[in-house]
């Protein structure tokens, strides 16, 4: 996707342990393509049982918008459904900020050009306060320098992303291309592999 730096307003979701069943409930996993999941992002928090938007949910609140979702710790726990990453991306987010991510979700995001940015609890809480007091506040995420900045306070923090995935994100490179480029080593491995 070739993303290196992004400056945007953000949407606050200060809830911990947001599992992938909340991000996209199982009953919406029936599509056989990757598109359109954004419509059902946070479905049961966003809409009531009559499919009417719930006014108190942040995605229904015009005050907040932007390409950055800022959420409580242990974001994306539970089911391995990649549809969660697809839904967030499809809705229009490019970055999710949290103080802790579940493993599978983190991997799925990186495989879809959705950047998970892990920050400290202190930085996260301050960022949430900033956004809630000023919805126009901007956040800058620089993938190249691995730095996130709260533009209102001027405070920055480094985040980590492994060198391989960083290269993939910047160049739009893909895991399968990479593995296939070493196909001889797979065949060599198989020739020595013991099968009972």
């Amino acid at each position, binding site marked *: 996707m070739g993303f290196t730096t992004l400056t945007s307003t953000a949407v606050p979701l200060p809830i911990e*342990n947001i599992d992938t069943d*909340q991000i996209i409930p199982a009953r919406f996993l029936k599509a*056989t393509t990757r598109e359109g999941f954004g419509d059902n992002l946070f479905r049961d928090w966003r809409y009531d049982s009559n499919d009417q938007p719930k006014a108190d949910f942040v995605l229904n609140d015009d005050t907040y918008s932007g390409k950055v979702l800022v959420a409580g710790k242990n974001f994306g726990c539970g089911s391995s459904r990649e549809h969660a990453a697809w839904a967030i991306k499809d809705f229009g987010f490019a970055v999710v900020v949290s103080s802790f991510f579940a493993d*599978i979700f983190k991997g799925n995001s990186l495989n879809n050009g959705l950047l998970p940015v892990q920050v400290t609890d202190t930085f996260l809480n301050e960022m949430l306060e900033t956004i809630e007091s000023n919805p126009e506040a901007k956040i800058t995420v620089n993938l190249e320098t691995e730095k996130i900045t709260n533009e209102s306070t001027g405070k920055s923090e480094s985040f980590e992303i492994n060198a391989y995935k960083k290269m993939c994100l910047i160049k739009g490179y893909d895991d399968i291309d990479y593995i*296939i480029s070493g196909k001889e080593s*797979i065949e060599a491995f198989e020739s020595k592999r013991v099968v009972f």
Partner: protein
Amino acid sequence: MAGKTLFEKVWESHVVSSKPEYPEVLYIDRHYIHEVTSPQAFDGLRRRGLPVLRPTQTTATADHNVPTINQHLPIKEELSRFQVQKLRENCEEFGVELYDLGHEKQGIVHVIGPDLGLTQPGMTMVCGDSHTSTHGAFGSIAFGIGTSQVEQVLATQCLLQYRPKTMRIEVNGTLGKGVGAKDIILYIITQLSAAGGTGYFIEYAGSAITSLSMEARMTICNMSIEMGARGGMIAPDETTFDYLKGREFAPKGENWDKAVAYWKSLPTDADAEYDRVEKFNAEDIEPWITYGTNPGMGMGVTQSIPDIAVNGTSKDMTKALTYMGLDPNQALQGKKIDYVFIGSCTNSRIEDLREVADFVKGKKKADGVNVWIVPGSKGVEAQAMEEGLDKVFVAAGFELRQPGCSACLGMNEDKVPAGKYCVSTSNRNFEGRQGPGARTFLVSPLMAAAAAVTGEITDIREMIA
């Protein structure tokens, strides 16, 4: 040099290539797929013009969105029907074996793999489903992956992975009456929290673990993901070998002896080191139940809901209890319930059904409670019938349904209505997991059976000798 852990031995024997700062290329022995997380992966192969590299190492089944009654009829729900149809077409086109709806080997992917002997010690195994950790019970490295990775494995039989840290969880001692594998794992998750295992691959050990049957070990490993761990594993031993011997895809004859000799080399060396070690006493574990909306929000059945969250902040606790319609300091014993679900990849094996049948024999379910019992596979269903368990369930007023994921995940027709309480042997109590607004209490099969009979949350120990 220190010895190696079970995890290290299996992992290192599957590294195809590695280079500094890059993830390792890990060879995958066995790949399971199902209808929900595979269609976009097959589409990806088509887009790239690639075949499935090793089609015989992938096995497919339909489990997540299949109905659990009238499986001989076309699936009523259009999108589900289409997804299962898509799986058929993809398996046909790419040469992958499919145990389709109606096939004698169909069932929940994590039930059929072990049942058929496809899951074996020392293997690497993946599936687009987080409960793939189940297969670790055999001493294999098994974990859930996303759809892009399903495509990766189909295309290359390999997966790019960074090596996780290792954690040993020991449970020593003797379990009390009425306490089983499900209670052990729910207890551990409550102690370590829903995120406590993130970044780790767990090995379960200790006398309370090694004394368990294979079915019970699968229940433990199954829920490793509920504390954020990628997987959990248990060293293979005689219990493992006895379970596998003679199963359809298990090694035979001379190969069997060679395999067992190799499997015996896998357990962790005495001088191996882990990144983290946690120890628990079996005597501290009572029948366990969750009260909140993640599996770490649990307590002993005789306890009361804490005032503040054991995990997460009190704001999360308030949100969870509001959803559940419960209060801090409330005891759950005696709480009226509406549904009981006995099934899922956590607890739908023949041993679970036998245990439930043994308890409910001669008893009846409480009025006004719906009880669904859903075998994990066609194989389990056939075995249950052969043993006459179906008659016990029917006599007790339980509804014996056909194999599938059923009410574990609110994706097929089996859903718990909004606001209703369901005592469930499944693995997740997330908001809406069993249907929009449904309220889940996670428990063991015996605790579920007790609730079915009394119509309220009950300490199983008061009902057994």
